């Protein structure tokens, strides 16, 4: 049985997917996950989830548009040519959106 492992490096971080382990039951899955994914790298917490219990939506397989595969420039802060530097929180949002746009561009290539 396959279990997916999500590691939280430090308290307050998000759990991110780090890989999987094969194990016959939850207890062994937790142990294997610890050994595989938390022995060397810092970990505050691990989530170990049966693979079969994870619902998935896959952009290509289901033919669904996710994360801006259609043209939606109007949805991005970067589309509006105004000065955001007057407030740091707007600048921060703009930076996050620029990063997301770069990631999307990377996916298309």
């Amino acid at each position: 049985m396959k279990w997916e492992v999500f590691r939280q490096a430090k308290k307050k971080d998000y759990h991110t997917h780090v890989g999987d382990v094969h194990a016959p039951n939850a207890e062994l899955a937790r142990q294997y996950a610890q050994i595989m994914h938390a022995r060397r790298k810092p970990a505050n917490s691990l989530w170990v989830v049966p693979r079969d219990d994870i619902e998935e939506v896959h952009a290509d397989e289901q033919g669904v548009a996710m994360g801006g595969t259609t043209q939606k420039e109007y949805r991005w802060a970067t589309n509006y040519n105004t000065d955001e530097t007057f407030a740091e929180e707007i600048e921060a949002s703009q930076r996050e959106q620029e990063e997301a746009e770069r990631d999307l561009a990377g996916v298309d290539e």
Partner: protein
Amino acid sequence: MDVETVTERAGPREFGPGDEMPREYREAATRMIQFHANSEIMGAYIERPFIRQAPSLDRKLAVSAQVQDEIGHGQLLYRAAEELGVKTREEMLAELENGEGKFLNCFHYPLDDWYELPMIMFFVDGAAMRRQATLKRTSWEPYAHAIDKICFEEGFHIKHGEDILRTLATGSRKDQERLQEAFERWWPRILQFFGPTDDQSTHGDFSMAVGLKTMTNDDLRNAFLNAYVPKAEKYGLELPEYPRVEYHEDDDYYEVYEEDLDWEEFFTVAANEYPTGVGQIEKRRRAQDAVEWVRDAIETPQQGGVDPAAADD
């Protein structure tokens, strides 16, 4: 955990669903997040008519995307509040439609014309963003997570609002005049966004002590004024004579004369008793009722052997 321990440990994203939080904390956090969620929903209802009234296709698409975002924020926040175990999402939605749910003062007023839209989409959302940015450090982790996504999207709303503001401010003389009128009408309400002064705030101290809030109403209002008064002036908007806003040159900050603001109206608004606000709540109730059948259809198991998966075929 008792309140004393909570106060000692309080810090950014310190507590989550795995922690046994005292009742006072859970109730204070629920009140705050539910207010925020309600405001997102009611804000969307204020903006919605402008999808139809937008003067161009681009504007129409952007307002539509924005309304969609706000509803999404509401849902995220109800989830974050629900994890406190005080009220379910259904209970909170029911409170909103029966007039018990509190929400932001600015969304109790009608929004009649396009010139007023930047008042919401730039100034009110800007004030909200100022406050929300500080909540990335709130002590209730699920709230902070919701805020991460909200702030990501909110930058677009404010920049779109500023884009509309600039278009109108650099338009015809008539555009400029109507924009100025809208500004004068909305400015006092916008100044009341952050609520009454710290010394009159009922829940502020506890929320600060347990890390739910990280900045006081007064500090937030000043930070907002410092960023947005120069911005209004840049677009040729003149601050009305009242409420008086004073610039303190020595310490480089703006201050509003609280006594110039209509707090009686504010508290009527806050109690959901202001006539136009009552109308907004009624609209929300009708919309909620109108789609009751959709919720029923989703939640009731299908009769007659139709498997939900059948929709995939």
